[in-house]
């Protein structure tokens, strides 16, 4: 593979955002580094943040490796990313309002209508409904990779309930505790306003019938869920209640939560459960997790649900291909962030190309996640490629393929010292009355040398992500 972009070192010199980290790195003997690493680990253990990132499953008690070497963006780099991310979040929400309304983009032939209307994630139960402020996806997690100084690609959009933001906050917290000097020497934009911004975003989409300061809750599937830590963490930081389905009930026109002081009306539900489990009356009659009657209250303006039911149709891997088209159609702008070129194996032409270029491509299952069930062509043996070829041929429409991107690397602490490792980035864009982006996000790092798979289930770790002030 061609040489990839190193975010710190370029042509033998240090790129400006990392300038001050050069000395820090040099002044870190192995013993100190090991001591600090052990300290970080014990801090993480103490706060109990051991859940899998992005609902990947795996051992819930396993700690995700934390790499102390920060990933740094300059103010200029971030400004452009921010514009691109906000643009994308706006277009995705416009798309959702459209496809649950008149479907203009489909009528215009810009996106095939069967891709939307026959999509499993399309909820005809909310067709014709416009949520408060026209927002379906209130927290948009956009997964980005970088291949050059100016080249960022969106890998996927997460419009439902993107997780991992607690890592963004905890990674920062721990870095500040362990290396306070670094935060004096560098002017780093804070991320700790995220919970308050999230609370304000949620409160800003209170339903039509809410005539007072809205009561916000987080709805969790419960402590068996791999992201339960994050749910309770965010509830704590926002100062809102964390509830399960059984804590909520519908009476008359509203939803109430049981409290020790009696029933309390709930106005906004930040749900961390899937659509199928929201309301057994509407979706899954066998669900024990949901709140019977919730959807009727929602549709009649008695409560808001974030993200709005049906938002998932915008982050489907097949719909992803058309996000640049959405940006042009709804905003009349050119996309600031690029999509990764994607071949749909369900299309005969695309399949032909994919099968003849397998050793160069990354092939993924359409509904897969967590880095499982994928082929990274350049990193695979001939046998592995052939086995995968048979899988694709057995069910072509279940696969998409993308070129293998030369993901950027950042310096990472490894057993031998410091070495470049590949990274990605998930920032969290908030959409309510305003569109806001906290300067930072979650950087995931592939800790194995040469690996491009950053998923924690496949040996990935996390880093603190810095955005420098002007």
């Amino acid at each position, binding site marked *: 593979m061609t040489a990839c972009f190193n975010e710190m070192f370029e042509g033998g010199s240090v790129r400006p955002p990392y300038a001050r980290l050069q000395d820090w790195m040099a002044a870190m003997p192995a013993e100190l580094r090991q001591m600090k690493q052990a300290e970080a680990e014990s801090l993480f253990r103490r706060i109990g943040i051991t859940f899998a990132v992005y609902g990947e499953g795996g051992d819930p008690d396993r700690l995700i490796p934390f790499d102390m070497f920060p990933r740094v963006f300059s103010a200029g780099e971030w400004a452009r990313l921010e514009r691109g991310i906000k643009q994308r979040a706006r277009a995705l929400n416009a798309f959702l309002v459209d496809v*649950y*309304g*008149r*479907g203009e983009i*489909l009528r215009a032939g810009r996106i095939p*209508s*069967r891709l939307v*209307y*026959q999509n499993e994630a*399309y909820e*005809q*139960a*909310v*067709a*014709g*409904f416009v949520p408060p402020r026209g927002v379906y996806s209130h927290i948009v997690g956009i997964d980005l990779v970088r291949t050059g100084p100016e080249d960022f690609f969106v890998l996927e959009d997460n419009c439902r309930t993107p997780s991992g933001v607690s890592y963004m906050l905890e990674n920062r917290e721990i870095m500040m505790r362990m290396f306070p000097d670094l935060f004096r020497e560098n002017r780093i934009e804070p991320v700790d306003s995220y919970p308050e911004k999230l609370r304000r975003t949620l409160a800003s989409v209170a339903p039509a019938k809410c005539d007072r300061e809205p009561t916000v809750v987080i709805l969790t599937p419960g402590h068996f869920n791999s992201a339960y830590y994050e749910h309770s963490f965010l509830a704590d930081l926002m100062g809102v209640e964390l509830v399960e389905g059984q804590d909520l*009930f*519908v*009476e*008359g*026109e509203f939803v109430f939560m049981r409290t020790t002081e009696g029933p309390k009306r709930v106005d906004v539900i930040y749900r961390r459960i899937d659509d199928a489990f929201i309301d*057994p*009356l*509407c979706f899954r009659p066998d669900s024990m997790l949901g709140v*019977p*009657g919730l*959807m*009727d*209250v929602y*549709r*009649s*303006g*008695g409560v808001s649900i974030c993200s709005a039911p049906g938002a998932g149709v915008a982050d489907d891997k097949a719909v992803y291909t058309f996000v640049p088209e959405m940006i042009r159609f709804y905003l009349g702008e050119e996309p600031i962030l690029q999509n990764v070129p994607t071949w749909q194996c369900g299309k005969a032409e695309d399949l032909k190309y994919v099968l003849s270029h397998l050793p160069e491509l990354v092939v993924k299952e359409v509904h897969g996640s967590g880095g499982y069930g994928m082929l990274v062509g350049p990193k695979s043996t001939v046998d592995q490629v052939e086995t995968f070829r048979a899988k694709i041929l057995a069910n072509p429409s279940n696969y998409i393929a993308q070129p293998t991107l030369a993901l950027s690397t950042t310096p990472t602490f490894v057993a031998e010292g410091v070495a470049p490792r590949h990274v990605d980035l998930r920032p969290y864009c908030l959409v309510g009355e305003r569109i806001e982006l906290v300067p930072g996000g979650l950087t995931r790092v592939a800790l194995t040398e040469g690996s491009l798979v950053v998923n924690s289930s496949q040996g990935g770790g996390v880093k603190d992500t810095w955005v420098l002030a002007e």
Partner: protein
Amino acid sequence: MLLKVDHVTRYAYDQPVRGVVQSHRLTPAVCEGQRVLSWTVTVSDGQMGGGFRDGAGDWVQAWTVLGPVSDITVRVEGVVETADTAGVLRGHRETIPPAVYLRDTPATEADVALAQLCAGVDVATDALAAAHELSRRISEAIAYRPGVTHAHTTAAEALALGEGVCQDHAHAMIGAARHLGLPARYVSGYLHASADGVPHEAAHAWAEVFLPALGWVGFDPSNRCCPNDGYVRLGSGLDARDAAPIRGIARGPGQERLDVTVAVQMQQ
């Protein structure tokens, strides 16, 4: 025709339940050939919840009943003035694009046998004739016989049995139409049982198929006709479950016993 509807649904629980939540699609929408003169829905001990018109143009009304309660009666009474539109749905306000009704559900999905039943039906030339032909084939392939199928029987299962009721006919009609690329949906409503000797269910169901030239058109394979002024249209959905006039959940371990009576009479 003036049709008077009396529809009583009684839920009895063998032990009191803590509460009940219901979602009703029990109010006829206004459209050509259907005008509501009076209409009331009551739920014993019930508190009326939120109501809204959904994307399909149906009024959805939520109700809750605070327990403990051991029986609940939902009573629908009203008078509707109807006219025969030869099954064509006109003047009905809805926002869901017809293409959404190409979505299959387990209840309507066409299996090999249902696909074979569609063989030779040419949608491209004359979609209306094609839909009539489908309706005819289905009424022949699935004989009307109550009691052999149940609420969860799929179109494929009913076709294999060769017997069923209006729900099965409607599911098969929908599956066949979608198989041929025509959007189709399930309609629940009432039927005035005229004295023509054919057995009718007063609580009835049929299918609507979207035809490019006419829009939504009703087909009732059970009665080998298109809905006329003897029909009252309540609401629609992708299948029977989606279009159910009453959906409900009771909190508590009590076993539920359901008793439904429907009378549709012509008024002078």
